[in-house]
């Protein structure tokens, strides 16, 4: 029934979610660092916004992004609705709060005297931040991985913004929903199993990097 080979759908899922994770990590780590270290006026409010963002259902994010990207919407002229790029935008919006929140928590958990010590050693602001990131590299990696996991597993925004177009924007999760609605439970189960394996591999990778990082820190 399905005209597209599984590996292409899987590759598209991975491409969309990986690009979104990279972009969301750049934004999220920067924003999380700012919220953890800088004395901003609206910091509490921003923190609350980030925490809310971590809990918003992905279908709501998808709805908002779709409303913006629809041809009749304010950004309609960009032609991003039902495209892979549109889906990446939605997933960035989904993953960024998560990465921001975990980054913020990770940096706040570092020993509070660390920044003071670094400053007294003559570190400038850039060196200070770089050093803190190195100290917190394992939780930062975990933040990016969590963002990736959240992005690749969601179906609400992928349906609304991507449209499940065969050969163009169909991803693993929307393919599962479509096959279930056709009564093709066998195909849906296979797709689900592949996603499960992918999640296992990604998390295995994270654990192995963490182990290596931890042993490196002890030596």
């Amino acid at each position, binding site marked *: 029934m399905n005209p597209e080979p599984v590996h292409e759908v899987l590759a598209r899922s991975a491409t969309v979610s990986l690009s979104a994770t990279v972009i969301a990590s750049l934004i999220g780590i920067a924003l999380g660092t700012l919220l953890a270290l800088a004395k901003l006026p609206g910091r509490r409010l921003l923190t609350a916004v980030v925490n809310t963002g971590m809990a918003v259902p992905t279908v709501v994010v998808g709805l908002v992004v779709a409303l913006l990207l*629809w*041809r009749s919407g304010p950004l309609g002229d960009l032609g991003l*609705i039902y495209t892979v790029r549109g889906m990446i935008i939605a997933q960035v919006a989904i993953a960024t709060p998560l990465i921001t929140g975990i980054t913020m928590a990770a940096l706040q958990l570092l020993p509070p005297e660390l920044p003071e010590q670094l400053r007294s050693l003559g570190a400038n602001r850039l060196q200070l931040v770089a050093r803190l990131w190195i100290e917190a590299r394992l939780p930062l990696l975990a933040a990016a991985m969590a963002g990736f996991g959240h992005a690749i597993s969601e179906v609400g925004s992928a349906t609304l913004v991507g*449209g*499940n*177009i*065969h050969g163009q924007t169909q991803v693993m999760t929307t393919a599962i929903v479509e096959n279930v*609605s*056709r*009564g093709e439970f066998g195909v849906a189960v296979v797709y689900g199993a592949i996603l499960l394996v992918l999640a296992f591999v990604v998390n295995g990778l994270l654990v192995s990097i963490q182990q290596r990082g931890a042993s490196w820190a002890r030596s």
Partner: protein
Amino acid sequence: MRRVVCLLAAVVVTGCSGGTAAVSSGPSGSFVLATTTSTQDSGLLDDLLPAFDEVSDCAVKTVAVGSGQAMKMGEKGDADVLLVHSPAAEQKFMAAGHGASREPVMHNDFVVVGPPADPAGLAGSAPGTAAAALKRIADRQAPFASRADDSGTHAKELALWKAAGVKPSGRWYVETGQGMGATLTIANQKQAYTLADRGTFLATKGLRTKVLFEDSADLRNDYHVIVVDHEGVNTGCATEFAGWVRQAPAQQLIAKYGEDRFGEPLFFADAGR
């Protein structure tokens, strides 16, 4: 020589995909086809669209939604061409000036499916109208699953209830808010009756529900193709698709679709009408 250069250029531009498409000079670009879930869930589009792709420079993006939502998308210019089956709503759509053209493409029929035990006794009933069959279901308060999603099938169901003089409500009337395939699956699990287009019913796997009422005049299901009239739509591609789907090759694909897999065609070609 000139031809060789032309071909070479075509190969470079298109990456060797379909020589005829590369040299044709029709409209181009991408366009959105908003269609009912039944055309996708039945698998028809999987056969039809690759054939269109071969002869056209237009890249089609299919979005499968209910007929109601498809027409909403047309109204706002978010879709370029519609393939829908909700005649009353379509006529309103055209009357309001949202469509440039509306032409018949194909038809099939709706069927009332239900559990083999048939608690409302539809299978034994004398030939009559579907409205009368639905009235029996309501009288017995037998479970009935409604799509309740503003789709063409849902519009048909509501028209039948109206003709039957029944305002469906209560515990026996289950509103799923989902597409045809999903609603058939829910009806199967809940041992409920439901109204389905024959194509999706035959194409949905793993159902134990049966066709219990069919072949009455009020169960006909007409599909039309509508070219959207709105600023910013890709009218060239939309018109090309609307024309193509009514030409012989596409109509033959439609007429043959499903024969090999289901033993009977799922749709009947209508362009000659």
